[in-house]
């Protein structure tokens, strides 16, 4: 970073923030992942013992010997991927409608997207338990209408997890998509129509490709936290198939196996670096095009 002192301060504050609250804790976790469990305080072996470096790779090896970890990881990736896809399918039309509505309606609609954040996240997930349980609102209404005669099992299923994640993360898909779609030049759509493109072709050839950065940003904001989601699957999900976030927390708090928990955390991080790098490529390309 060169330039004036002002510039250096502006760039320096977030850099310091990242160093203190991300880089250093990450290095600590990385260090712990290479140690062994000890019944001590703290409950792991020091990396530097008797003046010698003693890294243990056993934690990582363990993750691949016990199928629990790989299965949880794959299950988490699947849940996150399906949820992201659902968020795109539901969020895209909503974001598009908001971006194309009038100024007053637009503000009201955006407000409605953000409004749920005013209630505690935990409370909202509990509310879904109340809605989905056997004698919950959904089952009661369906039975009252005579559509079903026996309550459906909704709670503690994959279905409930998808509902919980899509419901909670939908705004994170809609907002970046809206920010992208709102900037689109309407004359481009007119130009495409003028050149003979039907409305669907206009969407496929113009709107969709131009909104890819918005889709990418929204997908990352949904996918990454969804992979490590802990509360939603714990409250709404199955008990026979845990997501990786729950496994990590159990490892840490129940088993008090900090090294294995750290190894799980590092593995998760490595897996999530791939989509982040993909997004950066898309963003770099759009930045170049915008120049």
């Amino acid at each position, binding site marked *: 970073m060169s330039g004036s002192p002002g510039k250096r301060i502006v760039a320096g504050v977030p850099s310091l923030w990242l160093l203190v609250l991300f880089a250093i804790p990450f290095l600590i976790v990385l260090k712990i992942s290479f140690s062994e469990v000890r019944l001590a305080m703290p409950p792991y072996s020091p990396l530097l013992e008797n003046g010698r470096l003693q890294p243990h790779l056993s934690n990582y090896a363990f993750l691949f010997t016990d199928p629990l970890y790989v299965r949880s990881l794959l299950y988490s990736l699947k849940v996150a991927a399906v949820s992201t896809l659902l968020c795109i399918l539901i969020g895209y039309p909503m974001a598009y409608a908001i971006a194309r509505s009038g100024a007053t309606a637009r503000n009201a609609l955006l407000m409605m997207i953000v409004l749920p954040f005013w209630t505690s996240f935990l409370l909202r997930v509990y509310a879904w338990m109340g809605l989905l349980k056997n004698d919950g609102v959904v089952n009661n209404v369906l039975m009252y209408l005579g559509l079903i005669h026996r309550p459906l099992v909704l709670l503690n299923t994959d279905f409930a997890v998808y509902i919980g994640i899509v419901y909670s993360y939908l705004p994170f898909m809609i907002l970046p998509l809206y920010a992208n779609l709102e900037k689109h030049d309407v004359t481009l759509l007119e130009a495409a*129509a003028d050149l003979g493109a039907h409305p669907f072709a206009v969407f496929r050839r113009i709107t969709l490709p*131009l909104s890819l950065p918005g889709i990418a940003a929204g997908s990352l904001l949904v996918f990454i936290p969804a992979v490590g989601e802990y509360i939603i699957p714990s409250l709404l999900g199955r008990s026979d198939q845990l997501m990786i976030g729950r496994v990590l927390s159990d490892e840490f708090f129940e088993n008090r196996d900090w090294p294995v928990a750290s190894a799980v955390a590092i593995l998760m991080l490595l897996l999530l670096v791939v989509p982040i790098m993909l997004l950066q490529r898309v963003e770099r390309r759009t930045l170049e095009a915008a120049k």
Partner: protein
Amino acid sequence: MSSAARPQSEECYVRIAGVSKRFGDFMAVDEVSLDVRRGEIFCLLGGSGSGKTTLLRMLAGFETPSAGTIHIDGQDMSAVPPYQRPVNMMFQSYALFPHMTVEKNVAFGLEQENLDRTQIRRRVGEMLEIVKMGAFTARKPHQLSGGQRQRVALARALVKRPKLLLLDEPLAALDRKLREHTQFELLNIQKQLGVTFMVVTHDQEEAMTLATRMGVMNHGKIVQVGTPADIYESPATRFVADFIGSVNLFEGEVLEGMPAGVRSSELGAVTPVARGVAVTSGATAWVALRPEKIRIGKAPPQADEPGVRGRVTEVAYLGDLSVYLVRIESGRVLRVTRPNVIRAPEDRIAGGEEVYLSWHASSALVLTQ
């Protein structure tokens, strides 16, 4: 008007009949009727808010007329959506697709027709050669200069061989030198392809160079239609006279006589009314005098020419010509221009000097509205 003498056999290609467009309380286009002939360049000239762009957008199909009909080549366009009209448009902002290369942009329209790939490639290549952009096929719009973008936009609009090409302020985004050059190139391309052009512009110079005929719009109405020379030399109203070029206008009163004349105390002279202009004696009329049609000199003019005396208040030297502001006896200030034919004229006129203004009797026009 002289357009009455024009042969009527020329084909009417685009017929706009009684078209209006209302946005809420605002009448953007007010009962416009207009015929455009095959192969001509028709310019719609008007200020902002005159309704010219709305009229163009109705031809493209982006707006539906509140009343009236539009026929293109005999076909009623009322129920035809933009993507099925035999019309293409070049947008003022060019509206090039930012995520596509030059070649892809131009091919877009042909791809919608499901032509086979080799044919598309050939036609895109030909069109890019015509606009001299053959060397830039792989560039994206952001890698092009303004003039290059304009060419790509033109190629994209022409490649589908439209019956009518609509151009919305085609040269507005170019700088002055490039604009002059492009004007003549646009004329060449139009001649080469024989497409009918309809150009919307607020720039009278652009309209005058491009147009075979032009229509002047004001407050949603077409005020006058004619060749550029018709409109400049025989404006129908004070608005047209003032909008196209500059003009000195004097209010006066119609005198009875054979022929009738207009006496204007503002001008301090009686101007005969030309044949064909209907006037009623005693009514208010206006005398219009173009600045370049007024002779200025220190010596008195020939006796048989109308003229007035005045004093120069301001001189602006513009290189090719000089502009003089002259206060005449009535107190009105006239604008007079004189080309600088000689490098250092002996009769150089300076501010504060006493001068004689005169003009040919037929140069002063009488306008009734």
